[in-house]
């Protein structure tokens, strides 16, 4: 039932309406609305009941194990939510003077400093509002750097074939053309291909490390040298930062610019798809180009930097200061973890991934890169199972839902056939991982003995498998009552 099905003309949630009356008689008649917008007309109980019940139709970290590779679905501490939502924080207008927000700005400044430390970068701006937004900012800074030097022939961005789709898309948004380079059999970048690709046209290389294949680029020192020697800059896609937090820093690997996904590594909520936060960190030479605002500390007085402070800035990314409330949650998380906690993140995320990989291998699952360590995630390929039983990675994933586990990422990275990209995160217990292995084994057995059972999954959810093709072909994007 849609909220519109509860609607009745004239019904209202009266307590939510202002008591006073207001006149609009001073407005020109032709600019006033002729027909009231057909929003739902419902009671407060209708709303509370409808959306409470809707929420129950979701899987979430708070209710299920969620080993979605590359998404870092770890526990979102509840304190981060309640402390970021203290009434005074919520009540502050973003254009209020800095004097009225020293509590907020102090927190923001300290977060900036911590992010610099954990990434090994010289500066951080928290303006970008998502990972892809951070990518855009990062690439725009690379371009601003080259342009400022008059090095305007560099119009090509190198991207490995295993990269997130956002990498090439962001590069294009900055006016670059994309050159894709291949991955070798061990899951590493093909150094020869990279050497062949670089040149005076190279603006930079965008790299995820550990890569989306779940393995660390062991030749990162060589990669760095090849790109820098060619005059390009090195971009770090922070999607997998959780895998190395406190173990190795992008700045120390020689990256010039990095974005972080705070909704991954700093455990801010995914919220059904956002809001996230995508701060960017930069090496010394990119400092002048950082997006504004960022927070400055002037002898203990904190203020937002403006165009006057960074005249070469790539500019502004949002009307205000990014997703401030998300940043506040990340700040609380960082304070709760502290130094030791930061060091532990990668350690236990990696322990969990390698344990799960070992157990699945033992249970007869094929690994995409059996000779490699898992980082915080790893890839199982179901190609053989598909060939023998017809059960695909998608079928397998849907069946996992019936067992109360969210599915791993499927069909990404695209270069591994029938793949499941599995990321358990550090906040899950051994018992939970064992339960997941049990379910994987059971489904494998089902696939071998009753493949149709698996192909028809899921059975226990609010809906059975949905027709995506129809969704795209017969577009129904807004409810229209059949009169």
């Amino acid at each position: 039932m849609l909220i519109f099905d509860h609607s009745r003309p004239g019904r209202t949630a009266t307590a939510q309406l202002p008591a006073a009356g207001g006149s609009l008689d001073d407005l020109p008649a032709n600019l006033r609305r002729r027909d009231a917008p057909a929003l739902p007309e419902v009671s407060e109980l209708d709303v509370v009941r409808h959306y409470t019940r809707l929420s129950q139709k979701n899987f979430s970290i708070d209710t299920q194990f969620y080993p979605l590779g590359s998404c870092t679905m770890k526990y979102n501490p509840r304190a981060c939510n309640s402390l970021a939502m203290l009434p005074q924080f919520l009540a502050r207008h973003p254009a209020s003077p800095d004097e009225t927000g020293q509590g907020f700005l102090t927190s923001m400044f300290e977060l900036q400093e911590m992010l610099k430390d954990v990434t090994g970068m010289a500066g951080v701006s928290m303006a970008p509002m998502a990972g892809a937004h951070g990518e855009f900012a990062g690439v725009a800074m690379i371009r601003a750097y080259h342009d400022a030097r008059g090095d305007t022939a560099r119009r090509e961005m190198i991207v490995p074939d295993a990269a997130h789709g956002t990498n090439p898309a962001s590069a294009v948004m900055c006016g670059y053309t994309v050159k894709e380079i291949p991955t070798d059999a061990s899951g590493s970048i093909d150094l020869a291909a990279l050497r062949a690709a670089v040149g005076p046209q190279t603006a930079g290389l965008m790299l995820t490390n550990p890569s989306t294949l779940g393995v660390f680029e062991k030749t990162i020192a060589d990669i760095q040298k090849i790109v820098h020697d060619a005059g390009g800059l090195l971009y770090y896609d922070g999607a997998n930062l959780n895998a190395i937090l406190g173990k190795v820093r992008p700045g120390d690997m020689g990256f010039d610019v990095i974005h972080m996904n705070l909704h991954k590594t700093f455990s801010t909520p995914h919220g059904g798809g956002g809001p996230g936060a995508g701060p960017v960190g930069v090496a010394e030479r990119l400092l002048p180009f950082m997006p504004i605002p960022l927070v400055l500390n002037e002898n203990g007085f904190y203020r937002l930097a403006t165009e006057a402070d960074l005249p070469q800035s790539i500019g502004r990314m949002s009307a205000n200061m990014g997703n401030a409330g998300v940043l506040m949650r990340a700040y609380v998380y960082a304070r709760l973890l502290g130094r030791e906690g930061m060091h532990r993140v990668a350690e236990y995320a990696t322990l969990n991934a390698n344990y799960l990989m070992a157990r699945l291998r033992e249970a007869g699952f094929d690994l995409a890169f059996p000779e490699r360590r898992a980082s915080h995630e790893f890839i199982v390929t179901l190609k053989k199972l598909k060939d023998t039983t017809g059960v695909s990675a998608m079928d397998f994933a849907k069946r996992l839902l019936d067992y109360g586990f969210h599915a791993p990422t499927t069909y990404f990275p695209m270069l591994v056939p029938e793949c499941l990209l599995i990321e358990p995160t550090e906040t899950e217990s051994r018992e939970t991982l064992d339960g997941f292995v049990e379910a994987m084994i059971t489904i494998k057995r089902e696939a071998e003995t009753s493949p149709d059972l698996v192909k028809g999954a899921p059975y226990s959810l609010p809906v059975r498998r949905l027709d995506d093709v129809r969704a795209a072909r017969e577009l129904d994007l807004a409810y229209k009552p059949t009169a």
Partner: protein
Amino acid sequence: MPFIPHTEEDVSAMLGAIGAASIEELFDEIPPALKTGKLKDVPDGLPEMAVARLMQERASADGFWSSFIGAGVYEHHIPAAIWQITTRGEFYSAYTPYQAEASQGTLQLIYEYQTMMTRLTGLDVSNASLYDGASALAEAVLMAVRSHKTSRRVLVPKTVHPIYRRVVDTTVKNQGIELVELAYDPTTGHTVLPADPGSFAGLVIPQPNFFGVLEDVHAMTDWAHDKGALAIALVNPTTLAVLEAPGQWGSRSNQGGGADIAVGEGQPLGAPMASGGPYFGFMCCRQAFVRQMPGRIVGRTVDLDGKPGFTLTLQAREQHIRRSKATSNICTNQGLVVTAATQYMALLGPQGLAKVASVSHAGTVALAEKLAAIPGVTRAFTSPYFHEVVLKLNDNARDVLRALRAQGILGGLDISGWYPELGHAILVCVTETKTAADLDHYAQHMERILSKRREAPPCAYKN
């Protein structure tokens, strides 16, 4: 170990299963020289109790203020139910609904949101939201250029929020798109349409504009269409309860005219001001442009049993499939804020939203009259305005605002820097949260400050 459940026994059993001697061994593919030592600028971890006390102290330091600042972000009442439900774990800690069957809650909610936004804007389709209003405008500019076959020029009035214009510039400048600034009439505050604009892909039409002034959106829409360009509405969703829907703009709206794209800042729909976010940008458009629209879109379909259900759709536009050919690099929406906004729109309904708009407007009118009655305060523009108004002062705006602040009043936004031609000018906004006493309080202090009368210095605390 905060948030890590492993016991020592777990660790040794797990290492045993892996066949590793230590956790450190699991990092043996990282060149040793690169490994991090102790972090320097991250302090020791604190228990939740200590962090809670710290944050409560910081919140208390920031305090509460009687704010009359608007400028794109509005202090509206947010029903208590909304965030109690929005922060339920099932919404709060869910991922992007890639596994549709396990995400029907989020997906149905977005479908309802999309429906509500199309009804507010009078357009055919909506996406699942974008980052914020400014970035939504930037995406609309890109979308207009993609849709227009020939021109890469877009006209942006100077009456569009100055920071929005900067965000648009940041976003599009590397793609060879030219932004043309349109002047405004210094008396009325209206955008002036140029006599000879040349070829352009789109015209941005703010309603109300940054000054709170109501633009002649019908004429502007028709003009853009006459020139073969798209009309891009930039609107405040609250005001759409009482101002004409973008889909109905122009004289030919009943023949498929009206604005082609509508974008704006969703914050007024239930998002706390929170020093700047998270908010969300909305974007609606005519059906013809749906495949050019960036961002996530949810569609209704059926399951294997023919039962209706919801799923992400039109993903072929998106970066994870099209990569460098994608419509945009955007791969999230502002899901949680949209969760709140959907409930907000349902709770307020058409009546409630109209009342919020009209009470806010009436408050602004009342305050503007009180303030304009004070010697040294005049209205900057003659035109009808909505919900927000520019006032000129005969004294330095920054100093006046600081004096008001000492009384706990944030009296508006100083826009003298952005619009030096206006002199000492402030943009003042009233919403339904302000009582008549609040307006009087403001006016009394403004009168005192401008007349240079001194008050006995109170405590260092605001009262």
